[in-house]
């Protein structure tokens, strides 16, 4: 153990991930049962996903297409032939006592994903990505997992298509893991194969070990033999990118503390307890050979290498960000914000086309995302109100309300009270006063203030400002001060 003797400052953190993502298909991976969340347990099942004797699985073409699209997006190879295996273990979430997964011939191999973290571009290698079925869900009743009286099982989720994406041990910090997962979700959502708002749609297992900093090569890679020699822990039960960052930061500190106190880091599996914010040692589970992987004879191989060419994928976030900068003249920061999710990027392009790219960028990147962020809300929370937000931008674009009122009153009320922009403008009387009313107010101000008019003609600068103030008072502040200034001058000179 080289790490053992080292001072903790001389240690480097090495992290690799296994990310399970739920693919968005209408049906399960090996049967025609719906993947829509059901209100009742065991309502979306059939002989295949219940593992009844004699039932035969048939692969869902939609899941295979989604997997090939993912492979294309992460620049992976799609091998000529890909096969399924049975992974045997006995637990009630698996009705067949095995999980159908892929073993030595996964559908995607050797990919990579680029992301930014702290202003720096990083690329992490993806060893493989394979298709498999999700198990069912268990409820441990009458206590915690260790003290429960009995177990309830729901197989609605059993057979939901998952993709397990296995990275190379290329991460050097928990921060990088969070940034990578956010980017991965972004790419998968762009592909239309993933919905991050779905419960349990992202699950992460992470391997973390500490090695001697001197063993990290200049290009950031670590020799296989060094990694093999270092004791690593596998942290399970991580279900979000923020959770991953917290769990791995905790685990990193825990291992450093152990080494500092001269204790060995045990090679073990640990469970991330989100509510307590700690990782806990799990009873050691089966070793790989205990899963007795063997070919799933009920599923013939897939030969889908040519699908990589056949299936189109949409413009991905990095390409779109660069295009936004070139096409709309946006800063990198604004372009990054606007391409962070496909929903926001699509909305921005709609608004930019309807009105003006600058106005659209200000309203979507700054005002909307800023106000949402302030309220701890996500874009998905207002996705069904894009029409209303576009209407608000229209009110500004057509000069019906001032930008200040739109921002400070209308948008905030829309988000806080759920009302539409037109109602708020009307209730708060924010509509810019019509030309006639302003004209009347201008005339009245001139008539009522002969002294100021005289001062104006004497060339006194402050006089016009006084008159503008009078007009603004008469119109309740809803006139445009620039317009009023102009009108007053025309009236006084005319």
């Amino acid at each position, binding site marked *: 153990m080289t790490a053992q003797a080292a001072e903790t400052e001389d240690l480097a953190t090495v992290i690799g991930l296994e990310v399970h993502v739920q693919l968005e298909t209408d049906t399960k991976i090996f049967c025609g049962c719906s993947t829509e969340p059901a209100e009742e347990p065991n309502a979306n099942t059939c002989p295949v996903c*219940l593992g009844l004797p004699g039932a035969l699985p048939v692969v869902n073409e939609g899941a295979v297409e989604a997997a090939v699209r993912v492979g294309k997006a992460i620049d992976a190879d799609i091998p000529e032939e890909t096969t399924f295996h049975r992974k045997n273990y006995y637990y009630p979430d698996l009705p067949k006592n095995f999980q159908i997964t892929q073993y030595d011939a996964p559908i995607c191999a050797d990919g990579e994903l680029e992301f930014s973290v702290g202003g720096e571009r990083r690329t992490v290698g993806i060893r493989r990505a394979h298709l498999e079925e999700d198990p069912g869900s268990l409820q441990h009743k009458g206590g915690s997992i260790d003290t429960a009286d009995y177990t309830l099982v729901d197989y609605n989720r059993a057979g939901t298509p998952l993709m397990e994406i296995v990275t190379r041990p290329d991460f050097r910090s928990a921060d990088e893991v969070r940034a990578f997962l956010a980017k991965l979700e972004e790419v998968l959502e762009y592909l239309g194969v993933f919905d991050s708002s779905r419960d349990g749609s992202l699950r992460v297992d992470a391997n973390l070990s500490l090695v001697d900093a001197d063993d990290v090569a200049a290009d950031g890679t670590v020799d296989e033999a060094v990694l093999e020699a270092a004791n690593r822990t596998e942290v399970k039960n991580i279900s979000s990118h923020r959770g991953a960052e917290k769990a791995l930061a905790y685990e990193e500190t825990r291992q450093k503390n152990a080494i500092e106190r001269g204790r060995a880091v045990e090679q073990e599996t640990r469970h991330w307890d989100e509510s307590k914010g700690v990782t806990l040692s799990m009873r050691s589970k089966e070793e790989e050979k205990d899963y007795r992987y063997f070919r799933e004879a009920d599923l013939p*191989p897939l030969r889908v290498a040519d699908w990589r060419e056949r299936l189109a994928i949409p413009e991905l976030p990095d390409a779109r960000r660069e295009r936004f900068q070139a096409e709309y003249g946006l800063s990198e920061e604004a372009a990054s914000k606007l391409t962070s999710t496909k929903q926001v990027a699509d909305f921005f392009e709609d608004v930019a086309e309807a009105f003006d790219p600058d106005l659209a960028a200000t309203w979507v990147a700054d005002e909307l995302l800023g106000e949402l962020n302030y309220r701890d809300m996500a874009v998905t929370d207002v996705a069904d109100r894009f029409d209303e937000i576009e209407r608000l931008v229209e009110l500004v674009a057509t000069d019906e309300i001032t930008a200040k009122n739109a921002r400070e009153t209308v948008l905030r009320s829309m988000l806080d009270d759920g009302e539409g922009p037109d109602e708020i403008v009307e209730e708060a009387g924010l509509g810019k006063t019509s030309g006639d009313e302003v004209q009347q107010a201008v005339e009245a101000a001139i008539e009522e203030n002969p002294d100021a008019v005289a001062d104006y003609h004497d060339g006194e600068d402050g006089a016009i400002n006084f008159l503008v103030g009078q007009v603004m008072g008469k119109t309740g502040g809803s006139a445009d001060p620039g317009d009023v200034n102009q009108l007053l001058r025309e009236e006084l000179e005319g």
Partner: protein
Amino acid sequence: MSDDSEPAVDPEAVSHVAGLARVDLDGDERERFAEQFADILAAFEALDEVPETDQEAQLANVMRPDEVREGLSQAAALRNAPETEDGFFKGPPVS
């Protein structure tokens, strides 16, 4: 293969596999199953006598469209279960 002095599957292996399958075997059963494994494997040796034949052309790309098909009702799904509760299968505690 079925050399009596060194059985293909010894009682320890039987015990290990039984553990993975969450089956509780006593000492007698471990011995008996180890012997039976030897007999079963010996029986399969008969396959060595079968002449090799050409393999049939392998199927590939057997898939179905991503279209929902009606499955079982909740009642039908639970019908064979020894115990249920509120639409769930009910079983002993597991950890």
